[in-house]
């Protein structure tokens, strides 16, 4: 017997190279991201100072003792950056995880259901939520929730931002998942499952959801970057994590007035943030690229 795979010769080269190429960039991304996560965990534990300690003179340039320098009141920026990193990364992972789960579930059900009215209603809501520029809806919600009190472990300002993100982010995944589910709904293998009399719930779970979540998960990894960037932007707009809690955005916001003399206060955490984003983009891109 011969293989009936249609030869797609002209793609072979690009595809193969892309596979190798993306494998390299995925590896780089994973190593970079792993390093940053490890530092966020271990730097605050192993460091002799706590992020809010006044450890030395203010405005000290980066040195061996203080790799990222000190800020306007003499706190160690290296420690603050990696302590703040946990706040950003956990928050981003938490809200994105929530958004992926809720969005994928709702979107898949909307795309797969035969009750088209349910789909219509959900998609109207999704359209409306997506129509708002993210920051504007966030700010409106942050104001409504209030941002002056810390909640448990979460520093003041964070819960409001998290709730706001959770209210908004799911819609993107719902739209993505619905589109994918709609496409899969009419795929031959789903029609075959229906014709074979499989129960509708297991068709959705076994034959549609895995195809949908591959896509939404790959997007989610890329989306973590966006959430971190947005969280870090909030202090510039008078929202977000409130001082003195360390968080990438709030550290940079505090440093913006001293840009001329002490650039490191802003640039160092910014560089770590950008590298985090770069590593996640490498991973996400390689996941999406691989599917072709």
């Amino acid at each position, binding site marked *: 017997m011969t293989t009936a795979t249609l030869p797609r010769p*002209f*793609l072979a080269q*690009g595809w193969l*190279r*892309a596979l190798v*190429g993306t494998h390299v960039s995925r590896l780089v991304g994973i190593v970079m991201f792993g390093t940053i996560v490890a530092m966020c965990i271990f730097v605050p534990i192993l460091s002799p100072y706590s992020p809010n300690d006044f450890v030395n003179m203010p405005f000290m340039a980066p040195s061996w003792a203080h790799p990222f320098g000190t800020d306007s009141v003499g706190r160690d920026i290296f420690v603050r950056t990696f302590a703040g990193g946990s706040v950003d990364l956990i928050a981003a992972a938490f809200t994105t995880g929530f958004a992926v789960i809720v969005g994928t579930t709702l979107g898949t059900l909307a795309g797969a259901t035969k009750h088209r009215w349910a789909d219509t209603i959900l998609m*109207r*809501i999704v*359209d*409306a*939520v*997506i*129509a*708002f*520029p*993210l*920051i*504007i*809806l966030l*700010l*409106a*919600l*942050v*104001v*409504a*929730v*209030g941002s002056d009190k810390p909640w448990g472990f979460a520093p003041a300002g964070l819960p409001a931002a998290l709730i706001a993100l959770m209210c908004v982010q799911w819609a993107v995944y719902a739209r993505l998942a619905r589109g994918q589910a709609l496409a899969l709904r009419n795929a031959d293998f789903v029609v075959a499952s229906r014709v074979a009399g499989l129960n509708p719930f297991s068709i959705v779970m076994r034959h549609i959801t895995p195809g949908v979540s591959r896509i939404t998960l790959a997007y989610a990894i890329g989306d973590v*970057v966006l959430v971190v*960037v947005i969280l*870090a*932007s909030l202090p*510039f*707009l*008078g*929202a977000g994590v409130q001082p003195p809690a360390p968080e990438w*955005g709030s550290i*940079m916001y505090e440093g*913006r007035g001293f*840009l*001329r003399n002490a*650039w490191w206060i*802003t*640039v160092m955490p*910014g560089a770590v*943030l*950008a*590298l*985090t*984003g*770069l590593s*996640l*983009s*490498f991973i996400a*891109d390689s996941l999406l690229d691989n599917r072709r």
Partner: protein
Amino acid sequence: MTLRAGWGQAAGKAGQSLLTLASVIVLVFLLVRLIPGDPFTTILGSEPSAAAEAALRTALHLDVPPVQQFFDYVAGLLQGDLGQSAVQRGDSVSGIIAGALPTTLSIVAVGMLLSTLVGISLGLAAALSPYKGVDLTVRTIVMLLYATPTFLIGLLLTLVFSIQLGWLPAGGWAGSYPENFPFLVLPGIALSGHLGPIIARTVRQAAIESSQQLYMEAALSRGLSKSALNFRHILPNSVLPVITLLGISFGSLLTGAIIVEAVFGLPGIGSEMTKAVARRDYPVIQGIALMSACAVIVGNLLAELIYPLVDPRARSAS
């Protein structure tokens, strides 16, 4: 007949947009009413006086039944009335927005232009030698830019071009043209730091895909030169998705503009929003949210209407 089908399609899309707009209005209306917690305490502080509360209740139009509130709100919207500022008494929300809008729109325009130019050039440059040196460099730069927050790009630009080199102002606004132009350069560049990479990525992907298409191979087999093919076939096919992208990026551009305004101290929608957030001026926040959602919806609609004009396939698809 094709023309009539085209109008029908356009009308259908406009109808969809109107529906979305209606849902947006409902959402904006509910925003202040569905959120857990009492808007009065968040706006007025933890223990508001009865008089202040009553005044605010009237200002926010909360002293009538909810259904009537909604219809009054919609009736107001239809007359262009977005309500009154809760803090600056006597200032209408629409007046505040109208005053700030031109500044924001000019930044958005500059950002859009720069993103498109830089994004398309970088994307094509990368795609010409996929998975090789130029491509890897461009992709890394593009991803790094994408991962750098807009405000950080803005701050770094200020550090280099204003503080170190003194070439351009670090912020401010002249208020009239052409004096405004120097004040637009750095904000525009900062703003394009987000959309530019997205466009570059899309163009690169489309260009690579189109260079792998069978029509490229068929054209090659007819003896056409590679450079002619790049110009006549790859360029148009890879720039097409940018139109859609620009349309759906209106929201993220507005988001970026708000941050850029905060960094460079420009008197636009972003500054009004930040001010309103700081003062808990709810009607203004609501008004800006509604206005920007409208802008996004219009942007999407424009992209959907323009696309069939440039892609013949979209014209005849039913």
